[in-house]
């Protein structure tokens, strides 16, 4: 007698190892949400800065966005670290494609943040509270690529540990950058 059990909808399980090409340009639901949230946040931060000053002052808008992205990056790094701990330690899963793309979006946000800092410094002559802010700022932008390199070249899988290390270190660097940047 044949079994009457219907196969349930298979849960999408990513194969251990490299689920897809690590640098594939693609946006799916979860990383798409993070990308959309980042862009909406940037737009809100810009509109808020314009509203506060009552005019479009490039310096004030840039400074406000530099300030807001630092806080946003800290929160996103915390969320990504928690997700990395959940996926890597609790579920013992490998890096999912959307998580990796999420990390790229964080790298992009931090590069934008660094660019705004450069504009503030060299375009408007603004100086951070302490000169070490420059080092922490560059380190924040450069931090995640180091761990992306370890993860994408890792022969030992799963390799979610790289992102756990990366996002925790990133949080520390952002905290120090905020502490040395604000007057």
């Amino acid at each position, binding site marked *: 007698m044949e079994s009457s059990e219907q196969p349930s909808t298979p849960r999408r399980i990513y194969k251990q190892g490299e689920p897809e090409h690590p640098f594939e340009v693609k946006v799916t639901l979860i990383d798409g949400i993070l990308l959309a949230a980042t862009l909406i946040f940037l737009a809100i931060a810009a509109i808020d800065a314009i509203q506060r000053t009552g005019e479009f002052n490039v310096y004030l808008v840039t400074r406000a966005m530099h300030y807001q992205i630092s806080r946003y990056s800290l929160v996103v790094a915390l969320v990504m670290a928690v997700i990395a701990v959940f996926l890597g330690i609790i579920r013992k899963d490998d890096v999912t494609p959307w998580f990796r793309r999420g990390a790229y979006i964080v790298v992009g946000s931090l590069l934008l943040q660094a660019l705004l800092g450069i504009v503030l410094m060299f375009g408007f002559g603004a100086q951070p509270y302490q*000169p*070490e802010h420059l080092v922490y700022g560059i380190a924040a932008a450069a931090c995640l690529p*180091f761990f992306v390199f*370890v993860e994408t070249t890792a022969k*030992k899988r799963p390799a979610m540990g790289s992102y756990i290390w*990366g996002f925790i*270190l990133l949080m520390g*660097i952002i905290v120090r950058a905020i502490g040395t940047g604000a007057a």
Partner: protein
Amino acid sequence: MTELPVSLIVSIIGTAVTGTFTFLVFRRWLEKRREDKKAPHLLAWSIGLLMFFFGLLSQVVLYFTWSPFFFSLWYWSGGLMVAAWLGQGTLYLLARKGNIARNVQMVLILVSLMTLPMTFMTQFRPENWHPGADMTEIYRDTTDVDGNVTTAGIFPASSRGTVRFFSPIMNIWGTITLVGGAIYSAVLFRRKQIMRDRMIGNLLIAAGGLFPAFGGALIRLGDPSFKYFGEMAGAVLIFIGFMLASRAVDEVRESAQQRKVRPAEAAGD
């Protein structure tokens, strides 16, 4: 003719010794690389020894003349990097599961790159330096029990929140990996009654890494120059330890390869 102080002579010999050891360990890493064998522990140790060399070399230069470059190099290499990089080599030998050692190395590279410009950006107070001074005693302010500055140091007080913020982190981490790693492997190998060379090698590395840290205690034994002897003895112990631990790793690899070959030979028969 003026007599050279013992501390300076020992520092000069220590510089030559660490320079030679750096070259030997690095050459060994290159040989492994040519043979397509991975030995990241040797690279990490050679970086640690190079930092040791830079620290001692800067100490010799700073004995004669003030140089902000050599003071920065002395603090960055000797004060921040040595223990952490030596510990990284031990970590490569101990943490074989996953990518822990590689990830820690990335943290170490990042912190090294961050602290390098920070150290060189610091505004020092060269007026607190004098020829023949012991750098470990004059590099920072000394305070009394109430926290009042009794002797001003070369680093400004504000540096405590900048580059000096990393000093305890790097040294505690380095000590944990060096000493903790040595104790862990000693317990493990003793329990299993295997790899005696690696156990002794790791213990020597740990002892060598701790010698410079016990400089203050050595001074109290009667002569300030003991501290410099301690630094040199540390470098020698580390080198012997590296050679013993690396030899043990090679032996394990060779026996593992032989085990792989034997079944194939048997099948061929």
